């Protein structure tokens, strides 16, 4: 299985994601922002960082990168995509996911480990987890405060599209939301970084519960 990792100028978790893909036993593929080509990836990770320096708004400029054209097409075709941290912000800006990520309510960058609960296993990125399963995952963001209007939030809840929920809200997110999925369920955005806990030598590989899920449902 080939898993692509997009690289925008200013992405800084791209190498971490590529390494995690290797640990998953899949083939990592670099997807350069200026190339409108997903290089036959079976799944795509949009990694964290500060794409385009977070200028204007996090993710706002990245959505216009050349690689986003085929990525949007891939999303429409049901391809599994996960946006992590800045990647989540990019996918929201590209309207592949609903809502937006505002500045943390405490107005400070937050790098920590947080407890989250898996709310749905009906996505390619959580299919290997159990509903209600609790994971400890790293966060590192200044704009992780998930926001959507009341109607959208109600829809997300009704349609079982909240993927991860914080047990202790670290940033002011509506409904303690740490991750959501698209209407088609194949596009997932999460603020915590599963790739940062993908190796026991770093103290935990709980993030693999999420990343490895995609292997099971691989479209070959």
């Amino acid at each position: 299985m080939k898993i692509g990792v997009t690289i925008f100028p200013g992405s800084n978790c791209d190498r971490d994601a590529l390494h995690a893909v290797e640990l998953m036993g899949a083939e990592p593929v670099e997807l350069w922002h200026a190339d409108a080509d997903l290089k036959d990836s079976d799944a795509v990770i949009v990694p964290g960082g500060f794409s385009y320096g977070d200028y204007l708004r996090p993710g706002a400029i990245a959505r216009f990168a050349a690689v986003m054209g085929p990525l949007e097409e891939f999303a429409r075709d049901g391809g599994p995509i996960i946006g992590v941290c800045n990647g989540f912000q990019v996918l929201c800006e590209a309207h592949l996911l609903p809502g937006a990520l505002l500045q943390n309510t405490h107005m400070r960058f937050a790098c920590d480990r947080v407890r989250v609960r898996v709310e749905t296993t009906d996505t390619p990125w959580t299919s290997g987890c159990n509903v209600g399963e609790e994971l400890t995952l790293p966060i590192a963001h200044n704009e992780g405060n998930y926001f959507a209007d009341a109607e959208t939030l109600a829809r997300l809840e009704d349609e079982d599209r909240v993927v991860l929920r914080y047990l202790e809200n670290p940033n002011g997110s509506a409904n303690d939301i740490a991750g959501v999925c698209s209407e088609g369920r194949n596009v997932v955005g999460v603020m915590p970084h599963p790739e940062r806990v993908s190796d026991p030598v770093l103290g935990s590989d709980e993030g693999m519960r999420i990343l490895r899920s995609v292997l099971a449902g691989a479209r070959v």
Partner: protein
Amino acid sequence: MNVQETYSALGLSDSEYDRVLELLGRAPNFLELSLFSVMWSEHCGYKNSRPLLKRFPNDGPRVLQGPGENAGIVEVGDGWALAFKVESHNHPSAVEPYEGAATGVGGIIRDILAMGARPVALLDSLRFGPLGEERNRYLFREVVRGIGGYGNAVGVPTVGGEVEFSGAYSGNPLVNAMCVGLIRTEDLMRSRATGEGNLVVLLGSKTGRDGIHGATFASDELTEESESKRSNVQVGDPFAEKMLIECCLKLLEEDLLVSLQDLGAAGITSSASEMAASGGVGIDIQVDRIPRRERGMEPFEAMISESQERMLAVIAPDDEAKVLALAERYGIGGTVVGRVAEHGDLRVIENGEIVGSVPAEHLADAPVYEHEVVRPAYLDEIAAFDLESLPEPDDYNEVLLKMLAHPNLRSRRSIYRQYDHEVGTNTVIRPGADAAVMRIKGTNRGFAMTTDGRGRHCYLDPRGGGEATVAEAYRNLSCVGAEPVALTNCLNFGNPEKQDGYYQLAECIQGMAEACEAFGVPVVSGNVSLYNETVRGPIYPTPVVGMVGVLEDVTRHATPAFEREGDMVVIISQTPPLARELPLVKGDRLSGSGYLEVIHGQVRGLPSTANLAEEKRCGDLVRDMIRSRLIDTAHDISEGGDAVALAEMALAGGIGFDFRGEVDVREALRGVRADAFLFGEMGGRYLIAFPEDRWDDVQGALEGFAYDWLGNTGGRRFKIGGLIDLGLEDLKSAHEQDLFGLPGDVIGGAEAVG
């Protein structure tokens, strides 16, 4: 302005100007004078510190690059090496704290990049005045925001550091940033320019007027006028730096570089003249080709501008197209601005005309000043200390809580939570332990890093403080199981032209050098920051040490956290055992201690000095015990003594502690003051914890050492027989308060204290 006014305004003395005349054999023009002024500043030329720095040992079996390059390099094994250096950004941070700190981080990253290494870790040593003052709170908050704002975006994790607060730093904060980079030993890059006809390429951002005369600014005392030098402070762009890093690493990977140099203090002037001087060649800079951010810049401005996020590379003419294409791919500027020449001069050319020409070796040859070392009178005055004159507290619960809440001892979590300390997925031991530990992907190896400074100790006893600073770093690395291999230092001092300042500098260096010799840890890079004085006086002499160590098996490490209920807690000491012979606890352990400052508001007395040979022996023992998996909990005893160290271990693990069960410590002390027992400080001491069934093996390892069993872990209370009995929650709410005083916090629990 006449000539004298001009060179004085540029920071050159009469004798220095005469020396310029002598070296050139003619009068310099303004551009040339500017070049000398920046290159002969203390910041670039080390004119007051050079002879003293020679006292440091620089060689060791792992040293691949000692002082003199952009960073030192040591071998780790498996073909890997570490490049590292610490550098100050004190003066810019005093004036514009966010940008000052941010560009300090950016600058040290480029030093590491210039060696060809990928920057993989950042640490920061910070000093501020007390948080009771609004200005100090502002500086602290903005410096931390600046470090995070830059480091987080550029994608290099901030994994460690330290901070202290004291009146000595009011108005003159210290901001020292350390960067560590990883490199394959065969890829080492040097900054030496070679090959006549090779091209000089400026990579990165455009050049503006920011930071003009910044190096000169950094080599002067801070006054009211400093605020008006705000324009001297550079502005950072971490996004541009990120692209510059990736571009330079790609150029190295494709073997397109002859040499590489960062642009820091004194900009192109410094970089080009150093590259030329070390290569024994000349460099022509076509100043009109330097891409500008502003109109109407004079040649001298373009030459000494400290605009950030720029590097200077020397490349072969045939590679020009490839190099410029890669710069374009990464969206950064790439412009050929000069060439390597045979003549040996740094020559500035504007529109085909030579507008300045100075032999590069003369720029690199700043004058050297040696001053007389005279013992300051203040040392005798503050050495006097009589413990008996101080009332002994009657509520030690309250004293411990006050100690733990003091900004100097409080948890640093509210700081490091603002730094991304995990990006790169290599961080094995995260901030909060004695040292940070990182793994090297594809190997079993790891490395550890710590930064340490002991300003108060250096003020009270410069030589002993110098020793203690290096010893602290040695202990911190030993506590995580790393073998200390080399260090970098940043020497933050007052004005060296004043007798007290020079004495402190000379004596601290002497003490540090002796400790380096005793431990076998060479100094491979460093930086000086002198003239840290304001109208309120000089700072504490504060040499900061950044030490790195190696772990052959990164999984064999320890942290301060109690890991299990029922573990035995043992103290290892370089003196006769503490608990077994309690009367040996002497009051002089409180001389110059944190307890004396926090609880009694006194900074005086001669701190006890370390026995360097014993320090090494104990550190080596603890490391061996960790390596052999005998222990996985270790912590050194430092500021705040045994009681604070034990409380830190309990809090880190979320497990309580009981001191030897039912022993009544007060009675056992037989008249010795309990505060000296609980909070006394001296070097070479460690606390370890391990399951009881390992006691025989541990005793075997400890043979020949002074040690004693102190108690056991367990429960939710922290008890030291009859003296202290507190719930972990009480300790936590004191220790883990936010240092930034958000609403609802008690700002600096210390302010309430005498």
